């Protein structure tokens, strides 16, 4: 086979890859469109008598904290103000090296509490349990450092209520986030997990732990990530959710039925994508049991989080996500093409395997092959431009569809100028940002294959969007 034939074959392979990838995205778009219309339509029924207090499902809010002394006080104060009738907060200090525990003790008047701590999930040793004398619903678990998953497991052991919510210590919730996110559990007893929308807080102004003003950030890297998040949540998760094939609920904000998580073994401390791994494992375990269950996405409980604004941190994050994805799929590989696993096994898992896991490799090799073929003269300039142009235009099309969903629903960025700026970045991301992402993710695959242990690394947080009340 000569080089020209190889180039021709590669062209067909890459075109086929793009056609299938975009056909799935298109299908997700259509499903998400109906799901969103239905969800928004049903909001009319948010009238009527409030639930009787005895009907509320109480929630344990678990907040793993590591070296959060600067923001933990404000974060916990904001959580205490959430609009939900019956919840407790369990902050898990994961062996912080700074004054996180001392800050909590001082600001919330914590005292040692004789908890009948029940070890249902393994975690590093618990060194102390405290309760606030001002807010009885606030407890702090002080434990040896073991990572986020380990901390959440300790929090689950201490949680009193049947539903627990995991949130990052530096995330900002809307006041009604718990009320919205609990709805699937109230509507269907088979619901075992629900995740909300994560948005990027850079450029916004937060005061007293709550969002005060929403705006776009100045830094282009953060705006690119806003476009990505809109796509990922508004048609990605919203498309998979009605098929009960959601494979991830973000670790920054998710609600879980405690007994199901405990029965599944809790969060794995030996993976880097513990949030995704748990969801994929829950699918595997519950499908194997033949149990009816639901894992769903609720579009509007918005949780705001800070996105990295430097390439180094962003790159590390993307490599970590990619490795987490691979680990999650590998550890639960029996789901793949398992007819008992329904849409999860037959559609979502293979899609994630081919397009999310291996996709970056195909994309990088495809682009390199196209460049080589064009430079070496195996491909005409027109053909090169058409093929790369197609990839770019399809990307822009998908981003624009996410903007339509945004207009249909929550209209978080109300000014037309903001939407236009997002559109501009949806175009610009195709000239460097997307390719860089693919390279990082491909490197993540490479590191996984080499078997190098994954580390979380330090996140450089700017917190410029926070201000004191």
């Amino acid at each position, binding site marked *: 086979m000569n080089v020209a034939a190889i180039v021709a074959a590669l062209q067909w392979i890459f075109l086929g890859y793009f*056609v299938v990838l975009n056909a799935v995205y298109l299908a997700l778009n259509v499903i998400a469109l109906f799901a969103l219309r239905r969800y928004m339509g*049903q909001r*009319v*029924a948010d009238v009527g008598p409030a639930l009787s207090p005895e009907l509320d499902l109480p929630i344990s809010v678990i907040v793993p904290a590591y070296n959060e002394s600067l923001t933990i006080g404000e974060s916990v104060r904001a959580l205490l103000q959430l609009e939900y009738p019956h919840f407790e907060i369990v902050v898990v200090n994961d062996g912080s090296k700074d004054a996180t525990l001392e800050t909590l003790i001082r600001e919330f008047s914590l005292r040692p509490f004789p908890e009948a701590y029940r070890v249902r999930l393994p975690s590093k040793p618990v060194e102390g349990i405290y309760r606030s004398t001002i807010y009885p619903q606030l407890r702090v678990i002080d434990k040896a450092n073991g990572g986020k998953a380990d901390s959440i497991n300790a929090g689950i052991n201490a949680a009193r209520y049947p539903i627990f919510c995991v949130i990052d210590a530096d995330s900002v919730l809307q006041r009604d986030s718990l009320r919205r996110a609990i709805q699937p559990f109230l*509507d269907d007893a088979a619901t075992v997990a629900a995740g909300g929308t994560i948005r990027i807080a850079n450029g916004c102004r937060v005061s007293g732990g709550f969002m005060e003003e929403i705006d776009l950030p100045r830094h282009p890297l953060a705006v690119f990530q806003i476009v990505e998040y809109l796509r990922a949540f508004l048609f990605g998760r919203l498309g998979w959710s009605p098929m009960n094939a959601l494979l991830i609920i973000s670790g920054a904000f998710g609600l879980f039925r405690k007994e199901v998580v405990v029965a599944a073994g809790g969060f794995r401390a030996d993976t880097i994508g513990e949030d995704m791994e748990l969801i994929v494992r829950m699918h595997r375990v519950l499908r194997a049991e033949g149990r009816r269950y639901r894992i769903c996405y609720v579009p509007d409980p918005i949780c705001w989080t800070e996105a990295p604004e430097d390439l180094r941190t962003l790159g590390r994050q993307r490599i970590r996500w990619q490795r987490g994805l691979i680990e999650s799929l590998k550890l639960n590989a029996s789901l793949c093409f398992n007819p008992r696993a329904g849409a999860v096994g037959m559609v979502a898992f293979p899609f994630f395997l081919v397009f999310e896991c291996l996709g970056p490799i195909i994309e990088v090799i495809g682009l390199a092959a196209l460049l080589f073929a064009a430079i070496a003269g195996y491909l005409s300039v027109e053909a090169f431009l058409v093929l790369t142009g197609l990839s770019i235009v*399809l990307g822009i099309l998908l981003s624009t569809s996410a903007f339509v969903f945004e207009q249909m629903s929550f*209209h978080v960025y109300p000014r037309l100028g903001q*939407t236009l700026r997002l*559109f501009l970045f949806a175009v610009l991301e195709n000239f460097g940002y997307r390719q860089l992402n693919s390279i990082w993710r491909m490197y993540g695959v490479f590191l996984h294959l080499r078997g190098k242990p994954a580390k979380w690394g330090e996140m450089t947080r700017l917190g410029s969007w926070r201000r004191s009340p």
Partner: protein
Amino acid sequence: MSASPAASDTLIHVAWITAQASLAGTALLLLCVFWMHWRRNANEARRRAFVARWRPALAAVALDGSGAHFDALPRLDRRDFELFLHEWIAIHEALDRESCQGLEALSQRLRVGDLAGRMLGHTRLESRLLGTIALGHVGDSRQWDALLAETDSHNLTLSLAAARALVRLDPERAIVALVPVIERRADWPHTRIWPLLEEAGPAALTGPLVAAIRGAAPEQQARLARFLPLADETAAGELVADLLGTTTSDQVVASCLGVVDSPAELATVRGLAAHPRWHIRMLAAKALGRLGERQDEALLTSMLGDAEWWVRYRAAQALVALPWMRKDRAGALRDTLTDRFAKDAMEQALAERGYR
């Protein structure tokens, strides 16, 4: 990319056509975004103007009740009818039924019932829901059958909205019709049925609910028995006593333990404290906390040594909440415990109650 690629190259041709189509799709979607943005702003301005005109007017009609304000009401444009219904529903939800008398006369004058009834056949879910909810507030039973049919809708929210509308229109008649629907519709969650039945009131609920529980299979009995706290206390108490004495279903026992409220059932509850299922033992501990006598203190103390954490925890909570249990007595009880797990549970319950 101004030059068209060679037509002979099929692949490039396909890619070229797809790219053009995608570009056209993007342009179309972008136009959609602009249009939706403009429409949303226009609708919001319209809604604000409508609310500014109508909210005080509706409040005046509701407060006055005589119909004297009718002539001063703004003209209701047909395309504002959904906005009107939003306001109409909001004011009914905010006020009790007696305070809405003036609004009923207005609804007849504006033919709200007819117009809302037509919305039941709408293809748009939001309109159907709005019409359904509004009908419950109109006091016009002509759409009864249509609403009853809607309780069978595949859409959970719509079916429950129809059920609530029926309850608001005629609680007695609604409960008779709805209890079989509740039995049939396993997808109606307990948390959504409860407010409906609560709104109907014990007078309307008790007869049909008790009759349905007596005639139902154990699984349905367990589900329906959870609503007994909303029924008349005497009838519910008699039924719980009967069920606890006769049923062999753990589910029914669990439901009954959750609602049992009569000291006459203490002997049965005590017996269930040794049930092989921990969930039943935990509920028995809770029930003993509500109904228990002094002699039950020993039983609850023995439950502190249960193998299951939840039983120990609930028994400890029940103990410290007993009416005669004071701080010193509870502390002394803790000091007598030799089992570490029992002591832990008691320590926690004492701390939660502020007895440390």
